[in-house]
């Protein structure tokens, strides 16, 4: 029965990696800057999910901390980029 779970974990990992590749495609061809920011948002989220799958497959808790850090920094970077697109500067006087 565990082989089924193993196959499901591999399938989910491959799906997340493929989603990262597609987000990378949108990051390169995105016509406007907001498309690239949205693609970056999707990219870091899928990277976080890939790391969580790595943690499930190897039953280690180290990857959880890295996933939490990726979520924190990804949120901060997306907010900073969106603020820059909106106002022209990130930290206003």
């Amino acid at each position, binding site marked *: *029965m*565990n082989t089924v779970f193993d196959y499901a974990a591999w399938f989910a990992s491959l799906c997340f990696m493929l989603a990262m590749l*597609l987000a990378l495609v949108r990051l390169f061809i995105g016509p406007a800057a907001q498309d690239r920011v949205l693609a970056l948002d*999707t990219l870091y989220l899928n990277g976080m999910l890939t790391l*969580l799958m790595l943690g499930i497959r190897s039953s280690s808790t180290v990857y959880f901390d890295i*996933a939490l850090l990726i979520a924190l920094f990804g*949120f901060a970077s997306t907010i900073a980029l*969106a603020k820059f697109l909106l106002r022209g500067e990130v930290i206003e*006087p």
Partner: protein
Amino acid sequence: MNGADLPLWVTVPGTLLLVAAGLLTLIGAIGLVRLDHFFARMHPPTMGTTLGTGFVLIASMLVSSALEQRPVIHELLITVFIVMTAPVTAMLLMRAAVFREHRKARPAKPGDGAEDSLPPKAGH
């Protein structure tokens, strides 16, 4: 993989949750590439953000609880964080996109008052 002794009440829901999360996230990414306007492209990745992340974290909670023989719920941290931050990100990005499209439709020439459409700077 690990231990090879996951019980049945972990294997069946974990398998279903992982397959569903992978499919949802992949469909969201395909929609991100294939849709043809930014405001339509905002929608598909949120499937991966909400359901994909939630399913993977529930599966991770099940597996680590079964392996450590006690309830492990520290994955709730990521869930709460993602649920709190995803709407903020989407709303800010959407406002930025609306503002930029508006400014692109009306190019600001000096003296014709079009720069009044810029939002006022805070602190001035």
